[in-house]
């Protein structure tokens, strides 16, 4: 048994070492031997902790850490939290306003089982989950709650729409441009909410790293100002590009009208075309707009602009 093992293996060695007694072990081992017990179990702390990735983590190919320790939010993070929460509130209102229940899967199921109010309840609960999950995620800086919020708010928009834009509330404008403008507003707020909420995590990480002396930041104000400026410009640009895409059914006839000259039959036909006003028209618009963007990248326009700025500065 282990507790009977004599670790002090000294013995009389005087015959070997000219009358001197040599210890084969140090005193400290005696002390260690005194602590020996008969159990041969591997100590618990000897077994390394293994993190088994959860389903969500496996699905996204990386850890979705919810328990990451952040230091209390600084001013920048707090303002981002408020911004994210505000955009989420507006987004939820817009989602509620522009997504009718008709055409959704839950609408079909509730009709089948004969409880039509169930669809409305489910629809509303998805938006509420998106709202509460988002608010919780943003203020608690919990990535999982944020992810649930994103999924709920995207899921609520998935429905068979029959190619036309329909809104839930009647008080919203009927005009095509106004409708598309509201759609873009909704999309911009969705993207901004995703960006701002992920920004909360990003800047919390940065702030924690700064305060833990892992990263040193020189000129914090200039860096945050750049982010704020981009936050103001990017949605406008993205919205403008999206508006061009959505209004392709008006842009193409207008261009044809210029070349058509004497008669405006062709342009008129295009204006009345069902395909151009439908979602396929939007697809065509997307193809055209992004073809132009691809050409810009193809000719290295960003690089050339940069070179020009470097020269002229």
């Amino acid at each position, binding site marked *: 048994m282990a507790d009977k093992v004599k670790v002090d293996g000294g013995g009389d060695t005087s015959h070997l070492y000219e009358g001197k007694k040599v210890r084969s072990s140090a005193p*400290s081992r005696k002390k260690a031997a005194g602590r020996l017990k008969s159990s041969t179990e591997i100590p618990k702390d000897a077994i390394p902790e293994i993190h088994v990735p959860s389903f969500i983590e496996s699905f996204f190919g990386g850890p979705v850490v919810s328990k990451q320790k952040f230091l209390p939010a600084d001013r920048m993070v707090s303002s981002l939290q408020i911004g994210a929460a505000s955009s989420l509130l507006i987004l939820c209102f817009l989602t509620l306003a522009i997504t009718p229940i008709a055409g959704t899967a839950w609408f079909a199921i509730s009709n089948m089982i004969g409880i039509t109010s169930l669809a409305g309840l489910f629809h509303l609960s998805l938006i509420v989950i998106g709202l509460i999950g988002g608010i919780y995620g943003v203020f608690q800086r919990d990535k999982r709650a944020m992810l649930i919020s994103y999924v709920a708010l995207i899921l609520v928009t998935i429905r068979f729409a029959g*190619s036309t834009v329909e809104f839930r509330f009647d008080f919203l404008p009927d005009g095509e441009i106004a409708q598309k403008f509201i759609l873009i507003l909704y*999309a911009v707020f969705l993207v901004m909410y995703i960006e701002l909420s992920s920004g909360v995590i990003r800047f919390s990480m940065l702030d924690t790293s700064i305060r833990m002396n892992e990263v040193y930041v020189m000129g914090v104000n*200039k860096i945050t100002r750049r982010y704020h400026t981009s936050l103001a410009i990017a949605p406008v640009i*993205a919205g403008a590009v999206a508006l061009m895409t959505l209004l392709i059914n008006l842009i193409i006839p207008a261009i044809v009208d210029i070349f058509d000259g004497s008669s405006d039959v062709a342009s008129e036909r295009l204006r009345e075309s069902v395909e151009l006003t439908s979602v396929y028209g939007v697809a065509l618009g997307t193809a055209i707009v992004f073809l132009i963007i691809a050409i810009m*990248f193809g000719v290295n326009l960003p690089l050339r602009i940069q070179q020009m700025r470097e020269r002229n500065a």
Partner: protein
Amino acid sequence: MAWSRKSAMFASLAIALYLLGLVLRNQQLVTVAVVLLSFLTWAAFMSNHADVSSSGRRAEEERKNEGVQLNSIVALRKISSSRIFEDGEIEVTLRLQNKSNLPKIVEVRDRVPEVMRVKKGANYVLMELGPQRETTISYTIETPLRGFYTIGPVCIRIQDAFGLFHNEREVNLYDDFLVFPKMEDIKDALIKSRVPKIFTGAVNIRNPGEGSNFYNLREYIPGDPMKKVNWAATARSGGKMMVNEYERDAVSDIIIIIDSRSVSETGPVSRNSLVYSTRAAASLSQYFLSRRDSVGLVVYSDEIVSVDRDTGKKQLYVLLTKLAGAIAKGNTPLKVVTNRIMPHINRGSPIIILSPLEDDSTIVDAVRDLRARNFDVTVLSPSSLEFEFDAKRLDRTGYEVLKTERDILMSELRGLGAFVMDWEPDMMLNTALAGARGF
């Protein structure tokens, strides 16, 4: 241009929503997708770097292209010392210059070896570098382990405001430095050679000779100088003339053999047999060289590296450099080492073997051969069992069995007349040496 995980997720989401929107004929989904794509495109556009491969240029031209932003940043580094001992500190100063006419927001990371810890300052800096401006980053790193190390390269990264795309460049700026094993002050190593070298020096060996330290008294032999006569002893001896004998001053050869086989690195990185052996060898070398002995070193791993015996401060640095570079690999038996070095060492010279005494069936034979040729063999054996047991990587039963085997081996070596010490992790080198030599 490198995509971040965020931008990849944005792009995937946009494409998925776009396709779903087309399938379901849902303009709402398509609109969200288009806004997402526009957002991504704008970020890529503002990242100021195009996909150069689309321009048909060759790969080597790429750096020049992407460097419109990054090439204008120059880095220069200065380190406080290129030779340092373990547990020392090195101050690193990194100068960054922006030679462009535009301000840049850059992330700079000066890569330090993994085992080093940044003690003061930061090697990771996020900053706004003004046009034609220069800034200095300073940080201090601790050097906990011996070895050859390199600081660098300097990684410079520029990314868009949303963290969607980034452009990275490594500035090939490297600074090498050497970390010597730390040395313990040895008061008296209690190791003296019985065989002098031809050149006399200030060190006493255990033979009578023309030294300064008293050795013993003996009867007068015709030819002894009169100044050696001890008159007091002569008077006490009842008429016999007695003369003083002195210890012979001479330098001796000390050979230190280090086991640097793979097995010597068993245990935690900072607490294993090789770490302890190199520290002990450094301390012993310093001690013996300060006594003006000549010290030789043999490090065996997958090959046998030896440093010829020599004296002086220069030799100490040569030995320390070899010790700093000792890497655990291979499995050369000790017998091969002793067979190779024995013809080149004076008989009776002290040989100090620093080895965990594991995984080598030739140890007993090797020590027997050395003892048979009258070498004074001291074995200091840092116990990897203790390292493993302390780190809780070894269960108690395994520890007990291996410990018993080790004790038997050590007893056998002692039986051959070698001085052997089981060197435990918490034991000072002085104590271990004293234990080995039986004091």
